[in-house]
Each structure stands twice: as C-alpha cells, then as structure tokens.
C-alpha cells in the first residue's frame, strides 16, 4: 500500500511540478503570472484537440496510429497553445505595461473559459452519454512504462513505473535550476527580475528576457495540463476536472522558495498531502475535507517564515509584479 501511495503522490504532483517550474521561470523575470491556471487549461485542451484530430484521422483505429506521432502531436499542440497564452500575457504586461495581477486574472478567466468551451464543444461533437471525452488510445502511448520497470520490484515501481512526462518534468526542473544558477543567461534573467534598470544599464535586453522567460514558463506550465489529462486521467477530459491545481502550482512556487529543484520534492509532498486522506484509516469524509487544506496551510506557513527570516536567497524577486519603463527611474 505504501508503494501505491508514493506512486499516486508522484502522479498527483507532476502537474503541479510543471506548473510551478513554469511559474518560477516567469517570476524570475519579475512577472507574477496569475494566468498560470488558465495557461494550464489551455495547454491541456490544445493537447486534447490535437490528439482528437489525430485519432479521428486514423479512423479511431489503434493499429493505424503511429506511437511517435500520437505523442508528438498533442505535445506540440499543447506547447503552441500555452506559448500563445504566454505571448498574450507578455504583450500586455511587458509591452503595454498593464497591471500584472489584473492581466493574469483576466487570462485565467479567459483560459479556463477556452478550455471548457472547446472541451464542451468536443463532447457535444462526439455525442457521448458521458459529459466527457475519452482519448484512451493516445493516453496508452503516454503512459507506456519502461520495459524493465516490472522486473525490479518495489524500487522499479517507485522509480521507473511512471509515464514519460514525469521524467520530462524532473529533467526540466533540474535543467532550470542549472540554467538559473550556473549560466550567464540565468544570471541575466535573475538580474532582470531583481532590478530591471540595473540590468538594462548593463546592456541586457530586458524586454527580450521578459518575453522569452514568460513564454518558456507558459510552455512548461501547459505541459502540466497535458500530463494531467493523458497520464492522470487516462485521456479523459471533462470540464472543470483540472480544478484548482493551477493555484496550487502557484502555492508550490512559494513553498519551493523559487528554486525549481526544491519544487520536485515539494510537488511530491503536495501530491502526498492531497492524497493522504485516502490512506489514513478511519477518517470520516468531513475530516478528509479538512485534510485537503493542508497544502495551502503549509504554503502560508512557509511564506510567513521566509518573510520573517529575511534570508536574501529565499525572497521573491525584488521587482516581482512591477512593470519596467526605461525612462522612469
């Protein structure tokens, strides 16, 4: 049971990991993208649309589907969808210098609307009895396990039994940490987020860094939506099923102290916290509901403690949430 619990926690945590790593990359450029929940919806639905079209093009016949294409098409669609959302966000907040909180919230409304709109339209199109759309064939390709996972017993199940996007998520988090901390690009990006005026004076193209960081961040976050649909939900899209995960991803950013590697552990912990209520014996449903607030309470406690200790490397980027206009300093 403990093994299923750990596997389940990892499965639940991966969408949060994608979301929070994406948000960390964006926040490092000084932009608090509250549109991430919307971006994740769009990432999910774009992948669903792509896979839906491909399955139909193959005549819904699994033998006719090319495994490589049936993974790559949703992946590519998802990335395109979420990068477009990131582009909208950066156009408004970087170029037009609109208020980041308001733009982000509007983008969330817009993105969740888009997701449910296209999701609902697809559901009507297939005319099924259930209020959902099942793309199990594509999902099978997403969740293909490594061949030797079953031979290794418990270790194999915990380490190697996941869908490939889980490993992609961990790889992205590690690469992001490396880039942010060890490379020139990462140093420049952090400079832009801490103090854009100084970065500008040092010859860094502030606008370009902000745009690219926001768009890469959105692409990564959108993959979280994709992973949720095709790995967690076995390819079944139903409206609003993704729920509050986007906000939890933003919570995880704080919990991870803006460090993508810490977000890996954090996301699995959040997954475990979300799921712990099912594995503790003798909990009534009402206590389970109280248990589900744990991730948020833990985040608040971390937020309060980091602000009390004022350790410099644990703070949000200095200019987070402020727009930058060169002539205004």
């Amino acid at each position: 049971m403990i093994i299923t619990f750990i596997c389940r926690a990892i499965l639940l945590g991966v969408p949060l990991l994608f979301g929070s790593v994406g948000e960390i990359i964006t926040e490092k450029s000084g932009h608090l993208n509250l549109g991430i929940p919307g971006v994740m919806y769009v990432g999910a639905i774009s992948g669903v649309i792509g896979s839906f079209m491909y399955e139909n093009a193959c005549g819904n016949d699994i033998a006719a589907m090319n495994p490589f294409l049936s993974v790559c098409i949703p992946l590519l669609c998802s990335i395109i969808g979420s990068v477009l959302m990131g582009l909208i966000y950066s156009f408004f907040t970087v170029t037009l210098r609109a208020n980041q909180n308001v733009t982000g919230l509007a983008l969330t409304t817009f993105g969740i609307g888009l997701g449910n709109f296209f999701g609902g339209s697809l559901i009507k199109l297939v005319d099924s009895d259930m209020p959902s759309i099942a793309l199990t064939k594509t999902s099978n390709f997403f969740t293909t396990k490594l061949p030797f996972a079953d031979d290794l017993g418990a270790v194999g199940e915990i380490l190697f039994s996941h869908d490939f996007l889980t490993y992609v998520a961990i790889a992205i988090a590690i690469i992001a940490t490396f880039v942010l901390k060890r490379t020139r690009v990462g140093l420049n990006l952090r400079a832009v987020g801490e103090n854009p005026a100084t970065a500008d004076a040092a010859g860094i193209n502030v606008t370009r860094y902000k745009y690219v960081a926001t768009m890469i961040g959105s692409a990564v976050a959108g993959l979280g939506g994709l992973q949720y649909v095709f790995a967690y939900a076995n390819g079944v899209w139903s409206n609003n099923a993704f729920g509050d995960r986007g906000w939890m991803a933003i919570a995880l950013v704080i919990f991870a102290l803006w460090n993508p590697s810490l977000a890996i552990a954090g996301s699995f912990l959040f997954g475990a916290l979300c799921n712990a209520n099912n594995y503790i014996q003798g909990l009534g449903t009402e206590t389970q509901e109280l248990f589900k607030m744990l991730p948020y309470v833990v985040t608040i406690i971390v937020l309060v403690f980091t602000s009390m200790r004022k350790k410099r490397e644990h703070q949000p980027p200095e200019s987070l949430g402020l727009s930058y206009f060169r002539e205004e300093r």
Partner: protein
Amino acid sequence: MTDTKKAKHHREPWVHIVKRDDLPWWKAWLIRISAIVIAILLVGVISTLLTKVSFLEVYEVMIKGVFGRLFEGGSTTMLWKFLQETAILLCLALAVTPAFKMRFWNCGAEGQALMGGLASMICMIELGDKLPYPVLLGVIFLTSMLAGALWGVIPAIFKAQYNTNETLFTLMMNYVATQIIKYYVYIEGGGSNTIQPVAAGNLPIIGDNRYLLNVIIVAVLTVGLFIYQKYSKQGYEISVVGESQNTAKYVGINVKKVIIRTMIISGAICGIAGMLLVAGTDHSINTNTVGGQGFTAIMVSWLGQFNPFIMVLMSGLVVFLRMGAGKVADTCALNASFADIAVGIVILFVVGCEFFIRYSVKFKHSNKEVKA
C-alpha cells in the same frame, strides 16, 4: 558594452514610447470607451463566426436575454437578476478597492466573502429559533462582518509586521476558506453536498421583490465608500500610503496601522457581500456561493479606477456581458463557458488600453503623435 551602445546610436529604433503628461479626462475616457466598444464588437464577431447568427442579432439576443421582455411590457425577472448580480459583484469590488488604493493586493475577496457567508449560515441555523428576529438580524450582520474582517486581517498583520507577500497569502486563504465550507456543509448537510435552505434569519423582503434590499444595501455602501475615500482623513491616509510608504512615514502616518485598519474594512465589506448572498439570496451555502466573483471583482475595481461610481458601470458591464454571452451560448447551442471568454476579452482590452492613456507611441519619421 560600449560597442553595443554605439551600435544602438547608429541604428535608431523605428518606434519609441514616451510617457504622456496627464491627458484631459475626456480624452482618457474616449480611449477607454473605444476599447470597450472594440472589445464588444470583437465578441460579436466571434459569436457570429461560431454560430453563423447575423452580427446584429447577436446583440439583440444579448440585450433581450439580460433585460428579458421588459421592452414588450412583460416580466422584469431577468432585469432583477441583472441588478442582483451587479450588486453582489459591485459589493465585492467595493470591498477590495480601499486595499488596492493602498497598493495592498487583496486577492482574497472570495475567501473573505465565503467566511462572512459561513458566519451568517451558522447564525441562521444555530440561533434561528432562539433570538427575536430583529436581534437575530443584528447578530448575523455583525458576525459576518467580523468573520470577513478576521479573514482579511490575518494577511494584513503579517504584511505590516514582516512585509509578507500579500497577493500570495490572500490567494491561499481562499482555498483554506473553501475547505472549511466543504467541511461545514458536510457536517450540517448530513453527508450530502447541500444544506437545505433555512427559513430563519432571512433578510426581510421589501415590497414583493427579494433582491431589492440587496441592491439598496450595496447602493448605500457605494456612496459610503466614495465619501470615506474622498472626504475622510483615513481615506486620505490610504492614498498617501498607496502613493509612497516613505512619504507616509515621513509625514507621521502609522503605516502599519493604516494597512491593518484598511484590511479590516475591506474584509468586513466582503463579509457583508457573503451575508447578502447567504442570508439575502440563497438561504444556504456551498463552495460555489461566491462563484469566483472575488477575482472578477479585482478586475472591476481596477477598471473602475478605484472610483465607486465608475465601478457601478463596470460591474454592470461585466454582468451584462456574462449574462448576455451566456444567453447567446444558450440560444445558439454553444457551451456556456463562452461567457467567460467574452468577459476575459473585454477585461484584457480595457486593461491594455491604459497604456495608450499613460504613454504615447512615436514613430521615427513623423513628429505626429500616433494614437492607436
């Protein structure tokens, strides 16, 4: 580094942005109104493309959907629903406004209103048959304000004391509140997901309209908040703190006190919104009682330039679009989420147009200012 600077000097960018001096108010409003008009036209175009209903018909469906058969002398049910929804959204927008003016990003209106609603619900259930009606109403009013204020003041205390990021803190508080509501509904509903409407402690119905009192209360709040912000000393302190905390400190304003006091007010008004929803409208509570309007309210407050009277118009606009686009979706067999897309587009346009009010775009070869 000097090389890049030299290169830039030779290659002058073809467009650059200049900060404007203050634009006359009517010009600024012309820009805002045209942004709204363009956005509404865009919504119309998208509807036409999706449904193949003619362009003008879309607006006809919207207006008829919101104002019902008012023009044909029929029922006013839809109109009252419009007024009710506008009132609630406005109430939440009013609540977050003083905090925003102080540059305190209260993203927790949702949770504060839920807690206010929960307080009303508990009073209605527990004290409903124990207290005389007027006393009960007073108790409901006070406890829901207190509950909202409590939920708002916790992040404010940490902001004042340790400069904890309030956007993230208030955001998290929403979900804590949601889970508390789930817990309470489960216990009180006896295992189901609903609480049956409670008859005790409902707000009185004026005349024969169940929404009229809600609308009146919010109207009073609107005027009250306008006076508070514009003519009271506390309102002035809020705007000084918002402009510059250092200035505020220098002139002897106790910044911490202002932050905490303002968030108590903000939370308390959210609590009132929750009370209006629970005791005044639904007579029951669930996690969807506020329905994400706490976030929409943030946008309304921003669009309304923190001015309560402009916020009346803005919340009317947002509710009109939400209901109208919902109606379009309904008649043309589109998914109901079309309304969210419409609201999102309009808000993005209005937020974006502020750019053209604050800055002007200058092109390289002309001295004329170009306004988009």
